[in-house]
């Protein structure tokens, strides 16, 4: 089933950010995808289950979250952040602004785990520059 993906700010994303991008607070509030309850029922997705969101750019695993605010079936919402940006398109069509609201996306349940920020970076951009967590305890 094809969805329209909207990304945006949420208050918990904003709060999580101030706790630090590597905090648990940020992970649980940003690595999520809000869905309409009806869509969830149709795809057999339970609240809190891991799902894979795929667009033409790539895919990312996040937690599904039931939202009574998304009334229109076929619309999904992800807070701004590295997880959402793993699937957004860079073309700006001459405006300098990528399309961050209204992308086409697919959703499926998955058994794979949600990556934390560090692993997500390693998966996406290779590990040449990213040092493994046990070596990098400088700021935690």
């Amino acid at each position, binding site marked *: 089933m094809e969805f329209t993906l909207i990304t945006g700010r949420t208050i918990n994303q904003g709060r999580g950010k101030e706790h630090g991008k590597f905090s648990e607070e940020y992970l649980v509030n940003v690595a999520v995808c809000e869905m309409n309850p009806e869509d969830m029922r149709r795809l057999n997705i339970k609240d809190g289950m891991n799902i894979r969101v795929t667009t033409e750019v790539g895919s990312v695993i996040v937690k599904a979250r039931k939202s009574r605010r998304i*009334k229109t079936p076929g619309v999904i919402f992800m807070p701004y952040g590295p997880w959402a*940006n*793993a699937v957004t398109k*860079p073309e700006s069509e001459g*405006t300098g602004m990528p*399309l961050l609201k209204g992308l086409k996306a697919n959703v499926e349940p998955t058994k794979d785990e949600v990556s934390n920020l560090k692993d997500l970076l390693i998966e996406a951009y290779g590990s040449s520059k990213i040092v493994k967590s046990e070596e990098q305890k400088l*700021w935690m």
Partner: protein
Amino acid sequence: MDVILSVVCPVCGCCCDDLEALVDNNRIVDVRNACALGAAKFLNYSRHRNTKPLIRKNGRLVEASLEEAIERSAEILANASYPLLYGWSSTSCEAIRVGLELAEEVGGVIDNTSTICHGPSVIAIQEVGLPACTLGQIRHRADLIVYWGSNPWSAHPRHIERYTALAEGRFQKAIWKRYLSRLVFESASKRRYRVASLMFKGGSASPPAPEVFSQLLPPSEERKLVVVDVQRTRTADLADFFIRVEPGGDYDVLQALRALIRDEELDVDEVAGVPIETLEELADLMVNARFGMIFFGLGLTMSVGRSRNVEAAIKLTRDLNRYTKFLIMPMRGHFNVTGADTVFTWQTGYPYAVDFSHGYPRYNPGETSAIDVLTKDDVDAALVVASDPVSNFPRKCVENLVKKPLIVIDSHMSATALVADVVIPSAFVGIEAEGTTYRMDHVPLPLKKIVEPPEGCLPDEEILRMMLERVRDIKGRESS
């Protein structure tokens, strides 16, 4: 314990200037008047913090002295032929000014975060202008507030309470009472519905949510709140009138409204999912307002149409001024993104996406904007100041960014800092350093220093100044 009054909040574009910080022994123990976002920053800023400069050696980030880090950064920038200098909206105007000097010196492209928030608004404003005012005017006088594609409840939590519907103005009162009585009414009708559906089994499981509250519209002289969005946000819950637009349909709805305001007949039943009758009601409401105000957010700039959506909204405002007073303002996100645009403009003539590679400033969003120079893989080094593009840019751009030598000046340890080659920790402006910030309505406010920064953490401005001097030394050495 000291109480510091009139602290300006360095989080969102509201720049609330009535915060009170309780400081004990150089530690912030509490902050009054702040919203959840503001409080989260003041109370958690020192967690997950790196206070030592880091340099990448053999693939690993290792601690270094500040001089070493500045030297390495200056080398990277001086040797690059087309570096990108990005970020700027979460630092002070004073630091931005030095950043622009640095960009000119190294012949790079400098861009601020407007590029991925209100860049399209700026493009539209350059085409058609912007009838705006300060937020104080709105607080005291506006009797119709429209939030279009923006959700202040989440992004600017005190905006509604300080400047619009829930603010107690001199000539306009807050809508608290009405909101509360509507809540009571709604929960009562839900309860009635539940009882009814128990008695007559087989009805639908949830009550038909009242999407439009026109039947409950307040008396004409009272302040009204309208929200237009693609989903029912928490801000929409507060509104007297909520209109749901299909994703990507804002342009159509705005143009339809313009036609209705000119008293033209529209030969359709609905526009982008909104029934024509609803739009007619909204058009009436707008024309009959004495002082109307539209706040628009990223719902317009980030969806299909981008700058054209904003242009349509501004033109709608312009049309409305034939009948009444109507103004419009973008809801700027970061606390000093307005300042970044302002400083960029007074120094170079352009608000963002400024290219110095020809020796003079050039501006062409879509070509000289951060997203585009990264997508095309044009830049050969980057300096990021107080921003986290690795989290906030599409993946393709980030792939090209992390391949290049990357310098980060930031008080947080961000995802971008993690993949950088040089990381220079700085003092938090507005907490540990002074500076100037511009509120979203272009009012400049002084950021305060309320505690001392950790040893060795300098303000962004000083770090940039040191870097600029070293770059000049290196360049001077080369040219002589």
